[in-house]
């Protein structure tokens, strides 16, 4: 397994960066925190992670202000050259606001902040992220968000389904689709058409040890190392 140089972004209001550092170090990788004012990414970044939190207090819309930070220009350029980018929770919101991923994340349908361990069904494994998961496998990963209600127009959505861009759906413990936050077709995670930019609302970095409820997150994050 390759040792990765993982660059983890940090905005004012980010709060999952240290969990993310812990998760990737636990898997044997090198991590560097990158402050949002940086205009470039560390050389030799194998993966850029936009972690969870409440960048800029979620003002205006979650992720809408962070996406104009200097470092995001570098991330745009990095992604355009095929570099791998993973957005978790607020990171997913930032990547949709930056148009690196299609769609947008709205307020949860029930208007509640939802925080719990959630079952997810693996939809597609033909990508660098979920290559160690099995199709239709059920993972248990924590979710913690108020704006996770994924929306995209039907035409784009059908296109994404055909291209294998739907990665994860919310389900119950038996694997039956379940409405969690109102997302179209119960979507919890997606990737772009080129399959180098990934986004999901659940937090794999919080599911690294069985003593803490689940280690399914480790299997997800490990995928990047074999690419």
């Amino acid at each position, binding site marked *: 397994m390759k040792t990765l140089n993982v660059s983890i972004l940090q905005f004012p209001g980010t709060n999952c960066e240290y969990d993310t550092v812990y998760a990737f170090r636990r898997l044997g990788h090198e991590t560097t925190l990158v402050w949002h004012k940086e205009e470039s990414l560390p050389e030799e970044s194998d993966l850029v992670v936009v972690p969870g939190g409440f960048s800029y207090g979620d003002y*205006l*819309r979650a992720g*809408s*202000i962070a996406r*104009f930070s200097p470092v995001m220009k570098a991330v745009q350029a990095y992604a355009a050259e095929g570099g791998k980018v993973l957005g978790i929770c607020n990171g997913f919101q930032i990547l*949709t*606001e930056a148009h690196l991923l299609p*769609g*947008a994340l*709205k*307020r*949860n*349908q*029930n*208007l509640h902040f939802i925080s719990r361990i959630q079952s997810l069904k693996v939809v597609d494994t033909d990508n660098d992220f979920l290559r160690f998961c099995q199709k239709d496998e059920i993972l248990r990963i924590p979710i913690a968000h108020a704006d996770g*209600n994924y*929306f*995209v127009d039907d035409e784009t959505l059908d296109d994404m389904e055909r291209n294998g861009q739907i990665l994860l759906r919310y389900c119950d413990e038996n694997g039956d689709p379940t409405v969690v936050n*109102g997302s179209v077709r119960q979507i919890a995670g997606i990737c772009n058409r080129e399959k180098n930019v990934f986004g999901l609302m659940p937090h794999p970095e919080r599911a690294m040890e069985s003593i803490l409820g689940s280690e399914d997150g480790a299997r997800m994050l490990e995928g990047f190392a074999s690419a």
Partner: protein
Amino acid sequence: MKAIVNVYLKEGVLDPQGKAVHHALGSLGFDNVRDVRIGKQIVLELDASDPEAAKKEVEEMAETLLANTVIEEYTVEIVE
């Protein structure tokens, strides 16, 4: 010069807050409400003299930052 920007979820995009308020109004006995949409209003104080040019600029602001046109639509009104 002042610009008033109203941002709403697009028609056809479910508005969970509007729905909850609609429901609450119904349970208070206000039965004549067909639909509720909740948006936000952004008021900008501008250093500008030409209302038309100002409107154009504010529309650009709306497209870039103030609204997410994947899910939202907006209106811009210039008031003196």
